[in-house]
């Protein structure tokens, strides 16, 4: 099962821009490959990734088969208030995973 890894600083100064990194294990089967007997391997990818900061969206990505296996993202956000940064991945075959991190703004 998918196990997301996230990297969010525990403490940041108010107004500071900081980096968030996420990694989730997933095969990201493209749907363009064939088995040795000529059957197409069906597509199985993560199609959407959303990050929210205190329920407000800060980053959203639409994924295509061109995203490598075990999708990695790094992006930035501005520290406003202490609270929770939540992440959600959804994809083919009902795939869904969530993770969250709390952050203290000084």
């Amino acid at each position, binding site marked *: 099962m998918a196990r997301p890894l996230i990297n969010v600083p525990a403490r940041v100064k108010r107004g500071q*821009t*900081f980096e968030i990194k996420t990694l989730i294990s997933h095969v990201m089967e*493209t749907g*363009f*490959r*064939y*088995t*040795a*007997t*000529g059957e*197409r*391997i069906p597509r199985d990818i993560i199609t959407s990734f959303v990050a929210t*900061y205190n329920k*407000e*969206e*800060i*980053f*959203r*990505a*639409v*994924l*295509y*088969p*061109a*995203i*490598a*296996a*075990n*999708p*990695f*993202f*790094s*992006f*930035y*956000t*501005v520290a*406003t208030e202490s609270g929770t940064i939540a992440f959600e991945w959804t994809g083919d075959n009902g795939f869904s995973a969530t993770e969250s991190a709390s952050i203290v703004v000084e």
Partner: protein
Amino acid sequence: MIPTEAIMRKMGGAMDEHGDGQTRRGLLKAAGTIAAGYAAAIVVRPAQATPEQMRAAMRNVVGAAPVRKGRVEIELPALVENGNTVSLVVTVDSPMTAGDYVKTIHVFAEKNPQPNVIGVHLGPRAGRAKISTRIRLADTQTVIAIAEMSDGSFWSAAMDVIVTLPACVETE
């Protein structure tokens, strides 16, 4: 891998047809049928998108608006040894304030089976318009990034990449 059972079955059929006969004709006929079966199994792969698909994918993002060169920077290794994981960084020159920010970043690869690579939605909360991820590249090609600004303008950058081991072509 050759499915031996299938061959045995076909040969068996040929033998029955000729009673006692492991006849040459029967054997050849069986071999012919198997060969035809294999030829049919080799399906044409969607090796790469057509220029039309590439244009359509970009039109879906941009519409009829003009796309200017500049303000966007793509970071990719110029020589990619493994197309299955290629580190991609896209940076857009923008103050990222409430009145002037990057709305979306779209990345396209013209020679992948599907030209879309990723679509990212940002906002003033991002603070910095810089994203990175890992992508697949099916061939030596040009990667294009288009950024949509909050004022509705589109800016782009292109980068040529040489891929020595392409993604998506190997079978399981």
